[in-house]
């Protein structure tokens, strides 16, 4: 069976909406089923990767603790929009895992090579 590639785009901030948590569930499940998964963080989605998050239970599960485990699921391609970081006065050093920060054009190239995209 040809395994199709999946890009999961995260464009919303954590906790205010459940998107981040449910997107991560989907990414991990897809990787578990042998799909090649690439993660993207754009717009307010970059806030999901911030270090030292301390959500209270009412804001949802502290799912950002799972990001360092992504590599154990063979999810190694994690791309962040450089422009989105800059607009929010953030740098890759503010993030909890190693990522590649790419300009929009290169990000679009990465998106274009994938079979399916799902956005949260």
């Amino acid at each position: 069976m040809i395994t199709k590639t999946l890009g999961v785009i995260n464009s919303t901030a954590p906790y205010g909406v459940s998107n981040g948590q449910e997107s991560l569930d989907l990414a991990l499940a897809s990787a578990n089923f042998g799909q090649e998964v690439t993660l993207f963080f754009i717009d307010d989605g970059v806030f999901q990767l911030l270090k030292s998050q301390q959500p209270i239970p009412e804001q949802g599960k502290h799912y950002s603790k799972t990001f360092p485990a992504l590599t154990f699921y063979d999810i190694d391609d994690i791309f962040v929009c450089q422009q989105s970081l800059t607009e929010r006065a953030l740098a890759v050093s503010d993030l909890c895992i190693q990522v590649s920060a790419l300009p929009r054009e290169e990000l679009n190239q990465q998106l274009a090579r994938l079979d399916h995209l799902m956005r949260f």
Partner: protein
Amino acid sequence: MATFGLLVTHAPFEQQHAFTAYRFALSALALGHEIKGVFFYQAGVQNANSYQAGHSDEFNVHQAWVELSAQHGIPLNVCVTAANRRGVINAQDAKDNDRQGFNLTEPFIEVGLGDLVQLSQVSDRVIQF
């Protein structure tokens, strides 16, 4: 001709996404394309809630999905975790959790996220609504 999988992540009523997904399915089928399945995730699981009771002169998207599935043999898959979180449960869930009623019935079925992977494998395109 292409094969499509539909991923519905929004609830009916407040937002148009689910209705658009349904209309997309009708159009694709009319043009001879194949819909391999619909997967309901996030708030999209509310599409499966049979307790929806709108006014009689309003479009009933739940019923529309049921008829679409019956006419074209399209599986209606609902992520069990996302559904249970939102109170969309089937008879077995109701029994297991000691609840008085249940609102998820066939042709909607509870599945895991692995079924979305399976749907994406057999679809040329997965379209998210």
